């Protein structure tokens, strides 16, 4: 490997990890402006043009505020938990393909951090670890609100992870691979009978997509499922005792998780970086694919924001009922349906 090869590898790995926190800064501004738009008020519009500098100013504030640790807290775990949250959020992106394998100047460059054979399993493994950051924050704070938030969150995430994984199993069944590049690859082209319909997984597996996307709201602790941090009853839930940038870490992790969940939805059900009828070539093709991927992801991020300011918060028993009695059976039915489709396809 020459020096340029090393640079390319480092870029593929490091760039997504650096860009994600960078996107969060304008994203917070977008969220607040969209919220304001929906509530018929101006929103942050004073700092810089259109209020764009509001988020950088807030981050500066978070970094300069006093970092407090409660006296009765478990220091080690209390300090470790926010870092864990950001780590779990950032490392998921390593296996999501953001473009095809392109040829530039005689080099083949796959536009993905690491194309591993267990890609989807890796994503679920990391997501299942992210629950520790919340549980530990709740427990180590030694505070009843934080503990309640932590317990609620672990119950919620475990319940919805089941439905989410079962829904995603339908995609694995259809593509016959955990590799995310394979999953994107099998979604290219259009159907024979209906040529204008792209072969996206969302078409045969609409209910699978529905379960996956709804569960994603619960996994990221976003409204209508943000019970772990319900202000009215739990102050701020698991991060009640956190201040300054440690609180900021949870904030950052939540937004990165929203981006990752959107990117995963686009990859599993909407063809990832592929644009129907377009075959990318060279550097331009790579850039176009990247833009397509970004646009699809941005769309789902906007849906996340849209839902947050539309729906009220669920009650805890309603949340559990929805997860276990509606989403999980629906996901199982979807899995059976996909298995039936695959049987038919194999016999033809």
């Amino acid at each position, binding site marked *: 490997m020459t020096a340029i090869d090393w640079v390319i590898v480092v870029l593929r790995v490091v760039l997504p990890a650096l860009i994600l926190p960078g996107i969060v800064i304008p994203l917070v501004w977008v969220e607040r402006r969209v919220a304001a738009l929906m509530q018929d008020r101006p929103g942050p519009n004073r700092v810089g043009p259109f209020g764009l500098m509001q988020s950088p100013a807030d981050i500066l504030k978070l970094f300069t505020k006093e970092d407090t640790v409660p006296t009765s807290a478990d220091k080690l*775990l209390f300090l470790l938990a926010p870092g864990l949250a950001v780590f779990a959020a950032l490392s998921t992106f390593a296996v999501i393909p953001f473009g095809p394998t392109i040829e530039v100047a005689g080099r083949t460059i796959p536009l993905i951090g690491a194309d*591993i*054979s*267990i890609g989807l*399993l*890796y994503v*679920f*493994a990391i*997501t*299942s*670890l992210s*629950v*520790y950051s919340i*549980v*530990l924050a*709740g*427990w180590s704070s030694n505070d009843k609100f934080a*503990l309640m938030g*932590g*317990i609620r969150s*672990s*119950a919620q995430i*475990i319940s919805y*992870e089941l439905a989410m994984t079962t829904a995603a199993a339908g995609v694995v069944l259809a593509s*016959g*691979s*955990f590799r995310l590049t394979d999953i994107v690859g099998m979604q290219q082209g259009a159907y024979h009978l209906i040529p204008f319909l792209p072969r996206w997984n969302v078409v045969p597996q609409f209910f699978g997509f529905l379960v996956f996307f709804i569960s994603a709201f619960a996994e990221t602790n976003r409204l209508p499922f943000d019970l772990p941090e319900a202000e009215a009853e739990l102050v701020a839930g698991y991060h009640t005792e956190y201040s300054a940038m440690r609180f900021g870490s949870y904030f950052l992790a939540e937004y990165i998780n929203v981006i990752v969940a959107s990117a995963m939805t686009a990859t599993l059900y909407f063809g990832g970086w592929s644009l129907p009828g377009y075959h990318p070539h060279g550097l331009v093709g790579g850039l176009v694919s990247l833009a397509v991927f970004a646009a699809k992801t941005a769309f789902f991020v906007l849906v996340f924001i849209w839902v947050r300011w539309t729906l009220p918060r669920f009650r805890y028993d309603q949340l559990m009922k929805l997860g276990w009695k509606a989403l999980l059976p629906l996901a199982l039915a979807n899995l059976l349906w996909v298995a039936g489709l695959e049987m038919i396809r194999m016999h033809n």
Partner: protein
Amino acid sequence: MERLFFDAAALLAILFAGLMVVGKDPVKSVLALVVSFFALAVTYVLLLAPFIAGLQVIVYAGAILVLFLFVLMLLNVGRERPDGARRPIQTVLGSLAVLVFAGLLLGMLRATGTRVPILTDAAAPAALADPAAIARLLFSDYLLHFEAVSVLLLAALVGAFVLARREEAR
């Protein structure tokens, strides 16, 4: 390079398993076990079994130990008392278990030798790395074992349910 990572991960796994045993705080013990399981997953990756590694993290670290932690937090279990309500039979059985597993380990080492196939090893079977190959084996040669385990899990589930119900009725 792979050998170095493997040794480091194996050492971490053993170290944190030890911490889990001697730890006085139950929550810290569970967390030590999480680190140990994660390190084990790393060794699985280096042993050409990424699928097993993924399952190791999802099932053990991500699901079972979260439930452990959940129960410990709900019950608010305190630190283990230093005097210890340890019965002599526990010491006897514990030593016996250690002997049995040490024998098992020695037997395995004698059968396979200390050489292990690591990531770059060309002699290692490539089939291990492929989830599809594992699935094929699971649903053909090992179908009976697979179904037996699922019945066992179901029995455990029903058992837990029965126990919990009795508690509720009282």
